[in-house]
């Protein structure tokens, strides 16, 4: 065999390309394997996610500062323009709220008196922590935010996150200092609710659009646009009575709710630490935390009640 200078590389080249192909196929297979493991809710995967999240959250927090400063500045400039109009509006609103305060005081007194009469057992007082939203998004398929409170602050799986306007979502991942809140608009979010006016129980199911749908509404329920939706507290995960949203569109077989939360200006959330009696902890059973709140099987689009 002649010793040509190229003879080594003529052997090494195909081997190397074969090796790189093999490595590529292995990586693709590993990615699919991760997907399946994640779907099976393996505890190890959950742990790994939390560790990485905790490690990277400070970086994201720092990165979110400049964007936030710019947004704040723009908001300030915009607010300045409408200062006078805003002032007038607030004065009117203040009048209206003062009237409501009178009503609320009267009702509170009445409520207390009636409770005393009926030996009513009041629900437990709810502790809360406030946290800043440091990352949103998740691209086209996930609606979730990351917040700056975790296990160390007493947050646990299933805690309700609310903003000043209403329910934001529930905690689905808890790290040491950070956690992730699944928004009520996410595909995997199913929350037991009641129609405030008629007390009809139902489930609010997100579908990644801005307006989640109401499913499992009783057949004879009378829902009209403008009805307020509040959490029912069924399943024992979220406390009852949290404002969620308002019914906006009713079409054949689908009732859509516009949440009260202003998603674009979601800067701080309050986490209600209810003790989460109804949450299946991943340590005891390999179930996602939200499975207790909705029905056992995720509904298919065809099974919506009219």
């Amino acid at each position, binding site marked *: 065999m002649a010793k040509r200078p190229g003879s080594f590389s003529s052997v090494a080249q195909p081997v190397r390309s074969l090796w*790189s192909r093999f*490595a*590529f196929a292995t*990586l*693709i297979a*590993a*990615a*699919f*394997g*991760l*997907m399946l*493991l*994640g*779907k099976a809710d393996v505890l190890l*995967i959950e742990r790994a*996610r939390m560790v*990485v*999240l905790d490690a*990277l959250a400070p*970086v*994201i927090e720092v*990165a*979110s500062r400049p*964007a*936030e400063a*710019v*947004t704040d500045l723009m908001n300030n400039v915009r607010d300045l323009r409408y200062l006078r109009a805003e002032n007038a509006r607030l004065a009117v609103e203040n009048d209206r709220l003062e009237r409501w305060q009178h009503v609320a005081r009267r009702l509170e007194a009445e409520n207390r008196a009636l409770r005393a009469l009926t030996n009513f057992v009041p629900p437990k007082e709810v502790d809360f922590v406030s946290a800043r*939203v*440091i*990352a*949103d*998004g*998740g*691209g*086209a*398929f*996930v*609606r*979730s935010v*990351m917040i700056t409170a975790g296990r160390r602050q007493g947050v646990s799986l299933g805690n309700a996150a609310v903003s000043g306007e209403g329910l934001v979502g529930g905690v689905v*991942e808890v790290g040491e200092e950070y956690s*992730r809140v*699944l928004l009520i608009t996410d*595909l*995997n979010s199913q929350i037991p609710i009641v129609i405030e006016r008629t007390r009809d129980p139902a489930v609010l199911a997100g*579908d*990644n*659009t801005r307006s989640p749908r109401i499913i499992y509404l009783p057949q004879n329920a009378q829902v009209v646009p403008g009805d307020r939706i509040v959490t029912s507290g069924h399943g024992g995960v979220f406390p009852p009575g949290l404002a969620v949203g308002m019914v906006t569109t009713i079409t054949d077989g689908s009732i859509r709710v516009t949440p009260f939360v202003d*998603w*674009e*200006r979601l800067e701080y959330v309050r986490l209600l630490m209810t003790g989460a009696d109804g949450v299946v902890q991943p340590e005891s059973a390999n179930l996602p935390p939200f499975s207790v709140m909705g029905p056992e099987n*995720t509904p*298919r*689009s065809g099974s919506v009640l009219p």
Partner: protein
Amino acid sequence: MMRPTAAQRLDLWIRQSTPMALTSVLAVLSVVTVGIPGYASVVPGYTAMATFYWAIFRPDLQPASALFLIGVLQDILTGTPLGMTAVSLLLLHALALSQRRALVTKPFLLTWLGFMVIQLPVSIMVWMMMSALQFRLIGPEPALFQYLVTVLGFPVVAWVFVRIHRYVVR
């Protein structure tokens, strides 16, 4: 020939790891809040743009293993099922590599067109895999919008990459 000094080697190493470092930074940036209405649901796929660019112009600096790690990192950050972005980036990388000869010396418009064509099956695949993992058909609109934003945003991001490619990576 002189052996390169330690400083030179470090310099080279930094230059050569810039592409992957940049892609990692973009993965983190894609979850940062910006306060633009509706932005969160149509965040352009920055990492996809970067992956395509480096697969075409410097495939030697884009090892598949690094792409895999970046994909998993982005999945953790965004909360998508683990491995989803990793698969999409690896696939995009492989598809871009296979068409590299046709795209590398062409004017930018053709490269852009190449990205549009190659990203399309990748986006469709991600959408179908997401649907399969959820056991139901997800509306195609979010995937479609994200695809459009990603391919339309490519020239802007590529402009930055060209600068970095020219002055930092070399």
